[in-house]
């Protein structure tokens, strides 16, 4: 395998961009799984669904980022509906039923995937935008604009959510419901409504993540299977419920994957996520920034 320090530096630079992208696609799961303890394995599928919705809007000349923002509203409502169904069918019936909820989310993921195949076929879909296909030249280095866009959106998303969760009443209530639900109930807040709102936010964020997914590369209906490992790895690595931890974990994963790809080849890159996860869980089971 070819090696040079220039290449290593470039791999780290690309890894930072990639890591922010991983953080952006995982942050919704950090809310739904990390804070709400919902086994939301359909998160990547919903994100792919968001990518396809972005593709549809792009055919009407919507910029993909604008499309992602527009889609946040209907996806927020969708998320609230999904959580309500999950709560009524599973969560309110006790912890055993909550585990059966895992099967529900797997089923939801399959339904979304098959629905996308029926609607769009198995072909890859792409979007077009002025910042896709061109790059920023910094001396010897060329950085694709699409990765810079994903990097920027990821930072904005992470900091917005962190501010929301720490500075607003609802945000603090969402963090409280994760820590002590009975205490929150005693404070006069309805934990179920709070969780429903939070799940809606997580799903809305997935819509924007889906827009970034299709900006960064082409999508097909089975792409959720590629990201299920990475997103859960980032969330668990971060420590459940930590937004800034999600960003840090995404960066660690992105840089590790980029360096492994450079040193050992593309075939090893998918193993990085699970390898890192195993190591961190062995040394620090609560994750790097876990409560």
């Amino acid at each position, binding site marked *: 395998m*070819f090696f*040079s320090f*220039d*290449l290593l530096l*470039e*791999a780290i630079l*690309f890894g930072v961009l990639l890591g922010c992208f991983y953080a952006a696609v995982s942050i919704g799961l950090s809310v739904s799984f990390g804070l709400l303890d919902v086994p939301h394995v359909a998160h990547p599928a919903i994100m792919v669904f968001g990518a396809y919705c972005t593709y549809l809007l792009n055919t009407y000349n919507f910029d993909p980022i604008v499309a992602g923002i527009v889609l946040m509203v209907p996806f927020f409502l969708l998320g609230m509906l999904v959580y309500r169904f999950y709560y009524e069918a599973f969560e309110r019936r006790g912890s055993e039923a909550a585990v059966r909820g895992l099967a529900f989310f797997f089923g939801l993921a399959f339904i979304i995937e098959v629905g996308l195949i029926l609607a769009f*076929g*198995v*072909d*890859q879909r792409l979007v077009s935008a002025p910042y896709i*296909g*061109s*790059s920023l030249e910094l001396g010897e280095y*060329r950085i*694709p604009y699409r*990765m810079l866009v994903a990097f920027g959106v990821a930072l904005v998303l992470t900091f917005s959510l962190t501010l929301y969760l720490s500075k607003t009443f609802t945000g603090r209530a969402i963090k409280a419901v994760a820590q002590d639900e009975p205490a929150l109930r005693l404070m006069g807040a309805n934990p179920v409504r709070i969780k429903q709102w939070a799940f809606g936010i997580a799903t809305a964020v997935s819509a924007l993540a889906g827009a970034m997914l299709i900006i*960064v*590369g*082409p999508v097909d209906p089975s792409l959720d299977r*590629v990201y299920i490992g990475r997103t859960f790895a980032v969330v668990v690595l971060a420590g459940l419920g930590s937004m800034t931890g999600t960003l840090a974990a995404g960066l660690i994963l992105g840089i590790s994957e*980029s360096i492994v*790809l*450079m040193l050992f*080849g*593309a*075939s090893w890159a*998918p193993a990085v996520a699970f390898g890192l996860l195993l190591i961190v869980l062995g040394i620090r089971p609560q994750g790097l920034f876990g409560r």
Partner: protein
Amino acid sequence: MKQLRRKVLKASAALAAAAGLPGAVFAQQGPIKVGIGIAQTGTLGAGGKAALLALEMWVEDVNQKGGLIGRKVQLISYDDQSNPATIPGIYTKLLDVDNVDLLIAPYGTVPTAPLMPLVKQRGLLLMGNFSFQVNHKVQHDMWFNNAPWNDASSWSDGFIAAGQKHGAKTIAVLAADQEFAQNLANGARVLAKKAGLKTVYEQNYPPTTVDFSSMIRAIRAAKPDIVFVMSYPNDSVAIVRAVNEIGVGSGVKLFGGGMVGLQFTPIMANLGSSLNGITNYNSYVPGVQYPGVDDFLKRYAKKAVEAKVDPLGFYLPPFNYAIGQMLEQAISATKSIDHKKIAGYLRTNEMKTIVGPIRYDKTGEWANPRVLQAQFRGVKDKDVEQFRDPKKQVVIYPDQYKTGDVVVPFEKARK
């Protein structure tokens, strides 16, 4: 009782008389069924759709002439979604449920590979459809591949020779980790070594890879003289995009070689000017004279617009039509649909087709390969019709079809 006996005797006599008249009882044998699983969706879908249309055109043409050996021809096809996992099921259905008489292989090496053990086990004739070296391990003796190549040398010689002519001494090899690309890469590596080229970068990537930025960066850092890429359509598109974003360095003389997909019109139109400078293999480009192909392409173009498939149809359709023509000649000559008889005919005769004469060697590949290497030049964005101009794909190899010299280095040819 007597009446019953008379009835039985009458019926027996009638049956005996009918048995003595073979034509009368079996007059309506039904059509000759030709079965195929071919990509209509997925990474190979753009090519598969065009190929299927060409086969349908052949069936229509042959039925208009009265069919074969007094029977109409019927084509039965299923979409394999470019997914090799679907192939055993599709072809088992074709054979055991649809009861097809003859088989045509799926388009492409990766979907065809799982079919080879089945046809060998059942002793069936299989007409190959643009596969590469898919029979070299199975060694099926009733395999006849319709593709203008036979071994890796027939594919890569032109590319490597063009690079060496301009002083190339080093090579980078980028290949998908799947049947087609690995078959070609294994051969290309040996040939590169024989040609005295030093391999400075080598990478096999998983077929699900969507981002090639890191690999293109690594290729740029390795500073090869030629970059030989073996990829399937989705990867080819992603690689061309990554090259457009990252660049491969000013020292690269040639880039391309074995990129499947850059022959499909929808992909060419989509990539547009990003294609410029890439030197890649092809089966047919405008300007190459094959007997009968111009007339076929005119008829195809009309039907393609109605069917909403590849409007130009340069790459696969003429060759798929030729598969039909070869079957037609073999069945007409042997007056049979017996697989062994057809195979015997195909092995020993030269057949006339719209892509020229075809003769097979003992491995079931073309005895006389005819792979073109052509460089994209002056391609503009969002213009499908421009590809009818021979100047957009300049043939640099073989000499028999050459229309110009390759422009080097790659970065200069891109402008």
